[in-house]
């Protein structure tokens, strides 16, 4: 056998270009940073400094990555000298680069916010190491181009979030962690099962390679795999029938950790759905479309009702987060350019807004010393800034015009109207999605403004004394939250670059030719 003809097909003989390392650098930096944190855990301020420096470096890398992807289209880097279907690829398009950047920014803000809450006795836990590990998992999940690696990064994320959710060891946290742990572990096991079947059917797990060979496989079998993926990612993202673990667990850890979870974890599940079902397996998504639409409608309608019925502040936030997942699923159910752009932009918006909501809820809980809205009140008089932050975030979550949340909702409404009313074959599904999106906005607004009225506006219960100690730590927390809110407001006021980016990203998701070309598999198209 002539080795010279077979080897170049499988092996890379040139070194990776130095500029391409920017794809893997964010993950490597986080992992090295997390290891360094473990060494430095006995020191006082070093963990914070290392975590902030690493996160800033990750943000710098991802800005560079985003600029390159925006200019040149999707990028890919393959590890270990093997060419794509064999080596492990990291493949980045506009959506994944933008989400990874947003995740790193939120992590930085949460790190600063958490500093306000941390006591001296808590100085020796592994909080910073876990946060960096979580960021590594999230970044890896966004940047990977290989489904098995997506599974591995999900597990990295999961083990780091286990560490964060039990940190502090209060019985409440242990209770939440049992439910969180079992259901998320079960979801990743379902994901692994889907991967096993996919490998058996196609013989490959590289996303670009699957895009090439999936149309040749048996459509019924592929739809089964896609349904398993939908179940696994739906559990991760807390979509309607499998959402119960989220309001049972997200309110138990400290507010900073809740914010990190709400901003990053469910969004990774939603992104994985977008990537796996729409970009990688479009044929199977078409078969699952009624299920996707049904899940979207149910999630949109039921989640805000949960928020209305809830008196615990952070549990109500959990239901608002789930409602946002419904909006993302609505876009997945309508694979038009507007629909996917709306989903993508909504993920970006939710990363900022949902984290911000939990951060603001943490400020409220610290100010009132309670976690139940029945025992709160009168906070407006005590702290006007917090009340404004909270209200802006509520309005953004409901999608009221001047804020970031409005624009993805607008795209989704356009898409659903196009599908339900103005298309050549109007469908009930599109119309129902339109109505659900609108009703969801109204219900979210009712839930959110009522929380606001109860926490801030009405007078305080007699037994309660509102204490907002003007400490340095509190100002730090307010400043960190304000930064997030400022981002939400500014992005809402100047949405043009985001809207253009979202439609460019949606084009890459819907027509992944450039994604496949980036991995170098295009010429082997069957």
């Amino acid at each position: 056998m002539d080795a010279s003809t077979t080897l170049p097909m499988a092996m890379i003989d040139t070194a990776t270009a130095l500029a391409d390392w920017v794809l893997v650098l964010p993950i490597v930096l986080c992992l090295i940073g997390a290891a360094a944190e473990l060494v430095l855990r006995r020191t006082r301020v070093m963990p914070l400094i290392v975590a902030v420096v690493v996160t800033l470096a990750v943000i710098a890398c991802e800005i560079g990555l985003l600029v390159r992807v925006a200019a040149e289209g999707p990028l890919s880097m393959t590890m270990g000298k093997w060419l794509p279907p064999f080596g492990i690829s990291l493949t980045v398009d506009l959506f994944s680069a933008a989400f990874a950047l947003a995740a790193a920014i939120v992590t930085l803000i949460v790190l600063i916010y958490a500093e306000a809450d941390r006591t001296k006795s808590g100085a020796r836990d592994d909080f910073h190491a876990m946060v960096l590990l979580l960021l590594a998992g999230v970044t890896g999940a966004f940047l990977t181009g290989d489904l098995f690696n997506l599974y591995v990064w999900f597990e990295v994320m999961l083990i780091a979030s286990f560490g964060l959710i039990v940190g502090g060891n209060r019985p409440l946290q242990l209770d939440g962690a049992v439910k969180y742990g079992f259901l998320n572990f079960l979801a990743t096991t379902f994901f692994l099962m889907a991967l096993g079947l996919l490998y058996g059917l196609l013989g490959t797990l590289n996303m670009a390679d699957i895009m090439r060979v999936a149309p040749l496989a048996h459509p019924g079998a592929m739809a089964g795999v896609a349904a398993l993926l939908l179940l696994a990612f739906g559990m991760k993202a807390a979509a309607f029938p499998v959402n119960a673990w989220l309001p049972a667990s997200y309110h138990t850890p400290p507010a900073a950790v809740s914010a990190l979870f709400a901003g990053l974890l469910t969004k990774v599940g939603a992104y994985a759905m977008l990537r796996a079902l729409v970009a990688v397996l479009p044929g199977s998504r078409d078969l699952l479309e009624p299920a996707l639409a049904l899940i979207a409608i149910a999630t949109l309608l039921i989640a805000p009702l949960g928020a209305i019925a809830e008196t615990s502040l952070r549990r109500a936030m959990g239901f608002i987060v789930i409602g946002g997942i419904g909006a993302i699923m609505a876009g997945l159910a309508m694979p038009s350019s507007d629909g996917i752009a709306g989903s993508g932009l909504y993920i970006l918006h939710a990363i900022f807004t949902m984290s911000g909501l939990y951060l603001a809820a943490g400020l409220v809980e610290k100010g009132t010393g309670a976690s139940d809205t029945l025992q709160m009140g009168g906070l407006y008089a005590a702290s006007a800034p917090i009340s404004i932050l909270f209200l802006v975030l509520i309005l953004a979550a409901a999608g009221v015009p001047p804020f970031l949340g409005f624009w993805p909702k607008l795209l989704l409404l356009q898409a659903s109207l196009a599908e339900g009313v103005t298309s050549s074959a109007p469908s009930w599904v599109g119309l129902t999605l339109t109505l659900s999106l609108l009703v969801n906005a109204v219900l979210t607004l009712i839930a959110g403004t009522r929380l606001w009225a109860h926490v801030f506006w009405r007078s305080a219960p007699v037994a309660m004394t509102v204490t907002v100690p003007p400490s340095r730590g509190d100002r730090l927390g307010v400043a960190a939250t304000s930064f997030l809110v400022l981002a939400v407001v500014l992005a809402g006021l100047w949405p043009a670059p985001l809207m253009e980016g979202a439609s460019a990203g949606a084009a890459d998701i819907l027509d992944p030719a450039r994604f496949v070309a980036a991995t170098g598999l295009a010429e082997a198209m069957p």
Partner: protein
Amino acid sequence: MDYVMAILVGLFITVGTYLLLSRSVIRMLIGMTIFGNGVNLLIFTAGRLMREVAPIVPPGLEVPDGPIANPLPQALILTAIVIGFSMFSFLLVLAFRAYRSLDADDTDTMRLAEPKRSPQPPLSY
């Protein structure tokens, strides 16, 4: 052989699901492990069962001599076993801690995070 493995996978997943549906955390944990092992066997079977030699290139050659076994499913399972075992260990310790601090092995009595009698939603706006 494939059919035997398929039945075994089905059995593992059935038993795992049955145990996962119980209320006791320890039984759920055992169910989780059995379920996970069923999935590992599924990957092994889906990666084709074959009796070929290990994928090692003999000295002096650049490609393997004759048919070889596919190492990839084994690599996938190895990764999944390691990850699954670490998750199992964490959940085992968590179950023990939860038993010590909540004095409950029954998920129905673990009600701190979700109180059974949650207060009625406020009627005022």
